[in-house]
């Protein structure tokens, strides 16, 4: 899938380069590395964008935005975590920003048109829609996790909160947050083995 064996000569981007190697090359100015990263991860980004925003035009816009961010900002640290995780969290976050501003624009228009006070609208109704679309296998796998493990994984991956933020919000030690998230993921991997293409 994403990372594979390191290439023998990480001086130019190759389809066998790891994500970390490609990011390093990209930051050294080798734009060709972006093409390889796009080929690997665009479907992940576009899938999240399309699901959250509900239309292709905005989803395309956001996908481009996310990949361009890789070339203009050095926020992603290849030593801290996987690129795919960073991309998923970034895409969701930017999609939500766009939903919020779309909602605000709509509210402003409403206010002008009808002279009514705006109603509060759930920020991302599509988020809940996804939960219902989950396959039975995924629901079963998630059910194997403790409530705390599920919650922490949601907060970390779905909402993009840092471990420290989670620890603060839940009032539990940082070490506990890390352990629960990690054990939760290991458990998911174990249960979903049959479903994952090898």
């Amino acid at each position, binding site marked *: *899938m*994403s*990372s*594979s*064996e*390191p290439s023998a000569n*990480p001086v130019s981007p190759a389809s066998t380069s790891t994500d*970390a*190697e490609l*990011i390093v090359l*990209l*930051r*050294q*100015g080798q*734009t060709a590395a*972006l*093409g390889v990263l*796009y*080929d690997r991860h*665009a*479907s*992940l980004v*576009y*899938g*999240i964008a*399309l*699901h*959250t925003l509900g239309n*292709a035009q905005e989803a*395309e816009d956001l*996908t*481009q935005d996310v990949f*361009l961010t890789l*070339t*203009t*900002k*050095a926020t992603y*640290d290849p*030593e*801290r*975590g*996987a690129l*795919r*995780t960073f991309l*998923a*969290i970034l895409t969701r976050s930017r999609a939500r920003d766009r939903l919020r501003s779309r909602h605000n624009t709509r509210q402003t228009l409403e206010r002008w048109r009808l002279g009514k006070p705006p109603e509060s609208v759930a920020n991302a109704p599509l988020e809940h829609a996804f939960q219902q679309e989950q396959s039975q296998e995924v629901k079963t796998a*998630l059910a194997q996790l403790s409530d705390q493990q599920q919650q922490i*994984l949601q907060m*970390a991956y779905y909402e993009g909160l840092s471990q420290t933020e989670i620890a603060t919000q839940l009032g539990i030690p940082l070490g506990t947050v890390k*352990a629960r*998230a*990690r*054990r939760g*993921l290991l458990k*998911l*991997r174990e249960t*979903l*083995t049959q479903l*994952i*293409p090898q």
Partner: protein
Amino acid sequence: MPSDELQLIMAGYILGDLSPEEAAALEELLRQDPAIAQEMANLQAALELSHNPPAVPPPPHLRSALLAKAQPVSLPVTSSPPPVARPRFPRSWRTGLELAAAGLIAALAINNYRLEQALQTRQATQPDAAVTYVLDATKPNSPASATVVVNPTTLEATLSVKNLPPLPPGKVYALWTVLKPNAPFTTDEKAAILTDVFQVDAAGNFAKTIPVPHAYRTQEIVVKVAVTIEDSQAPQKHVGNPIMITGL
């Protein structure tokens, strides 16, 4: 299967919460057992399958549109290499390197700034007045041409030659600066100063920036600029006659 502790670290990488010490341990693990990468891909897939909507390939035009927009940019790379390459430095040492690097970069920036200031000052007091010498071939119907564009202030010139035939082994082209008789500069018996020697490429061309004699500061003193063919071992003997010269 790696130990429980290492499995937790692998999960931590996929979740993006690895500490530097854990990153070092993971790097070591990957070096010993590259098959671990497959297991990490499985963890990534498990996370995505359980939390993401399905992946959807974007329309084909998006790729070229993106690459057209992406400009090559230089960004700070993490000072230590990615976790599948060489050994990393411990964090405190890395911070020390980063500070040292930052200091070096700052020092270079200051030097460049000073150099630029100095150049600007120089140009303000001694305005550039480039003098161009155009040389024609002495042989009729020869396509050969040459120019020497001199900056009298810096005593640098751009020599540019076209369509001169490549020479046989042992021969070389020589560029001469010919001065007015009795000029207060050292010259040979032909009142000339050997200014450059060169060979042309297969197409008969040559270009280079060369230093030129002080005589160029006093323009009336330079009466001719010429090219001859000389023995490559002793071009200063000045045995050849001009094959190219100014003022024809």
